[in-house]
């Protein structure tokens, strides 16, 4: 079975190669090729999953070594795969959701003349993401990490004719570079400390390294996770990344790629377990992002950006959970998977709405769409219920576990984290209800666009609705399947380890509180958006609202600190270069030139002047001779 692992990556990679190199003649079949190869990857994943289920829990990890990339004494870089329960979870999520989104894209991108290329990029993404989660060492993981970054860049800027898309792609790439630096530094520290970067030896040897080193590695890994998973302070790119086509937002910027940071932290669990300081930072980052994303999500009128804020916030939950240590790892991954289902479903729903609304994204121009697109309404509604944690649906199970684990952290820290997660849950309920109400309920508020096209909301084609329905199933049942009987915990425990947390209040109380804050959030949103008509033009809003509309001034901060600072730095460097470096160079040249100019005057062409020089020189030579003799 091990030999199939490479095929998981190979199938979509082949698809990318064929589609991107094949040229125009593949335009007619390109999307089918891409979808089939993604589906093939999913099928192989399922086969491997079935095989894995048949083994005992501790014997499930598979390894495959393709070849040694850099066979140097003391530096072994292998192209090798490791398929354990954690990777398996990701493989199924990535290839499964990926396949569904491929299918969805067939309909969504139908009228785009560059559809083949789009599928090529999607396949490239799936291959890179699978490589990321299947790698058995940090270097190969880094390869996949960069691969998904590239695919993300290509897909955000897929409509490169729009300056905003091109800029967003660049922004995503640049911000990600900061995180990638963290990952590469972490790998370097690892190599100097442990002499290897293969998961097994590194994680087994964490006891040998000093806590300071481990903290450094942990913080660098966290920086990488922040970049890829859009956590504070590297969160600014995710909102703009919504410039990409909606399937991309669903697959890459909601379900899979942005969760790579969570994967990285959970995969490096042993390092973080041994570095409590790094763990604390992880928790803080998660908590801050959780609230940050939620607040931003409340203020956005662009449906995709509201969902992007939500994504940020939900990943904040995962990061927080991952920072809690063994009591949280499993739930981080569990929330990751359920989130993959319902957030992908929500994005696909949003895409479906936009599809029917002439690509309008402003929710203030929607309203009352439930009558026009019932399937979208139902699937989106199920995703909505899942994300706010409606009892019984996926989000309820996974989020509740995280809140419980946060309380179980213990002490003041536990109370603070628990409160933050509860508050986050309330805000989640609030903004998601807002999205729901503004989009599907109330009066219709759409208008003719500039060219006078009145939008005719209609249900999307089958190729789009079927993936939405399937994802809605996932949103509804995944949590139950995972949560009931701690199935997911038992599944992942051999890889990540598990410690049962004991919250200071009973689990039932936590659950009740979760449901209560959810109801409060929904109620508030209903009072604000359900009872009153939604104004088409956004009201001015409070200071916080206005700040949140500007993504809580993140770009202003970045601009003021990094762009301005960078500009000043480069300006002063340019000044130093011009005045000092060039000054020295030019000064040398000028002084040599000036000296030469003076010396040239000696070359006046008059034989008598030369004769004086000769005569003087002779005199000096005689003087020297006499002096030497005297001495």
């Amino acid at each position, binding site marked *: 079975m091990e030999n199939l692992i490479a095929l998981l990556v190979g199938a979509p990679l082949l698809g990318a190669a064929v589609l991107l190199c094949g040229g125009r003649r593949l335009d007619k079949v390109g999307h089918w090729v891409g979808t089939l190869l993604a589906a093939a990857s999913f099928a192989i994943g399922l086969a491997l999953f079935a095989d894995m289920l048949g083994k005992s829990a501790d014997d499930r990890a598979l390894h495959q070594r393709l070849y040694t990339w850099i066979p140097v004494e003391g530096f072994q870089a292998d192209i090798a795969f490791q398929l354990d329960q954690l990777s398996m979870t990701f493989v199924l999520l990535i290839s499964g959701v990926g396949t569904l989104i491929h299918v969805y894209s067939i309909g969504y991108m139908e009228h785009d003349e560059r559809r083949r290329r789009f599928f090529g990029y999607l396949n490239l993404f799936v291959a890179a993401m699978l490589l990321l989660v299947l790698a058995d060492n940090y270097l190969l993981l880094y390869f996949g990490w960069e691969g998904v970054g590239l695919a993300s860049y290509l897909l955000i800027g897929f409509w490169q004719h729009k300056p905003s898309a091109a800029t967003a792609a660049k922004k995503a790439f640049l911000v990600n570079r900061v995180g990638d630096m963290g990952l590469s530094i972490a790998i370097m520290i690892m190599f100097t400390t442990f002499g290897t970067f293969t998961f097994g030896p590194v994680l087994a040897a964490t006891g040998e390294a000093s806590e300071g080193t481990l903290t450094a590695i942990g913080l660098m890994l966290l920086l990488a996770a922040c970049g890829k998973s859009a956590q504070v302070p590297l969160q600014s790119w995710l909102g703009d990344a919504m410039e990409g086509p909606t399937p991309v937002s669903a697959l890459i910027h909601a379900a899979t790629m942005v969760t790579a940071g969570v994967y990285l932290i959970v995969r490096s669990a042993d390092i973080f377990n041994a570095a409590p300081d790094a763990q604390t930072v992880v928790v803080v980052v998660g908590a801050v992002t959780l609230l940050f994303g939620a607040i931003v999500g409340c203020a956005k009128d662009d449906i995709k950006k509201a969902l992007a804020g939500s994504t940020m916030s939900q990943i904040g939950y995962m990061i927080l959970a991952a920072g809690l240590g063994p009591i949280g790892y499993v739930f981080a991954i569990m929330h990751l998977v359920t989130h993959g289902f319902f957030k992908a479903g929500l994005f696909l729903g949003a895409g479906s709405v936009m599809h029917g609304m002439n690509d309008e994204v402003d929710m203030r121009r929607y309203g009352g769409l439930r009558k026009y697109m019932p399937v979208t309404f139902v699937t989106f509604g199920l995703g909505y219920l899942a994300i706010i944690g409606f009892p019984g649906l996926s989000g309820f199970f996974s989020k509740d576990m995280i809140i419980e684990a946060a309380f179980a952290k213990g002490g003041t820290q536990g109370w603070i984290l628990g409160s933050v997660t509860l508050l986050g849950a309330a805000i989640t309920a609030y903004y998601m209800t807002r999205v729901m109400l503004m989009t599907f309920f109330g009066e219709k508020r759409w208008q003719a666009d500039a060219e006078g096209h009145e939008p005719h909301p209609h249900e999307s084609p089958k190729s789009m609705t079927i993936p939405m329905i399937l994802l809605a199933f996932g949103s509804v049942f995944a949590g139950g399947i995972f949560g009931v009987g701690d199935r997911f915990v038992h599944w992942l425990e051999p890889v990540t380890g598990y410690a049962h947390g004991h919250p200071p209040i009973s689990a039932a109380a936590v659950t009740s509180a979760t449901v209560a804050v959810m109801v409060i959030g929904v109620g508030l949103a209903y009072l604000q958006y359900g009872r009153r008509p939604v104004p088409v033009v956004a009201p001015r809003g409070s200071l916080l609202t206005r700040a949140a509309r500007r993504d809580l001034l993140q770009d202003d901060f970045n601009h003021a600190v990094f762009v301005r600072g960078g500009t000043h730095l480069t300006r002063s460097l340019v000044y130093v270069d011009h005045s000092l470096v060039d000054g020295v160079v030019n000064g040398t040249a000028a002084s040599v030139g000036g000296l030469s100019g003076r010396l040239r005057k000696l070359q006046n062409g008059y034989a008598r002047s030369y004769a*004086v020089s000769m*005569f*003087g020189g*002779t*005199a000096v030579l*005689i003087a020297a001779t*006499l002096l030497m003799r*005297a001495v």
Partner: protein
Amino acid sequence: MSAELAAYATSGGEAFQFWVLGTVAVAGALGTILMRRAVHSALCLAGTMIILAVFYLANGAYFLGIVQIVVYTGAIMMLFLFVVMLVGVTAADSLKETLKGQRWWAAACGLGFGILLAGGIGNASLTEFVGLGAANSAHGGNVEGLAALIFTKYVFAFEMTGALLITAAVGAMVLTHRERTERARTQRELAEQRVREGKHVPPLPAPGVYARHNAVDIPGLLPDGTPSELTVMQTLRKRGQVRDVSAEALADLKALEQRSEERLGRDRDEEEATR
């Protein structure tokens, strides 16, 4: 002062001779470099060389003394004078220095160099000397001694200098000789050419219009008082030795006219008075 004595010792007479003639020699050397006219310089140099010849004789170098007079003063200096005549005996150099700081540098270097030489000589332990008596008498005389050395020890150098002299003579000829590549034209041909060109058909005008200046290097004046270069011979024109007297002549003319005017005026006055 006997020859024998001069060969190895200095007498009071020689000392007297040295101080007197040495002074003259230095004066001649200074004259050489300070005289404005090249011909004067040459004469001063000739004087210095004759004195040097006397010193050679006093030092027992009889052959060299004679050669100095015959070859140097007699032949080389005459060659110098010949060239000076060729280039222009009258042309006096301006002693005004044109190169900035040249004179100061020359003075400083010369002074320093002289002091160094003197210091070097003073430093050397030259308190005793052998004299040439033995050397001169070894082969029966100074000339025989020199001959013995030249044709034995220095024969190769001697041959080389002979070759050098030949080469120099040939070189001088090559440098100054100009081959005439065509036959010189006859008077008749020249006259025919003049008529054919229609320019200056009559002979060129003669120089020296005024009696005071009837020298060949003074151009004749045209009716308007300007000098005509054509009246001076070609050689002088090319050498730039044409004396320009036009200003002088014009001033004379003016004075003449003024005088005649006065005379005429006075006559007129007298006439009016008599009337």
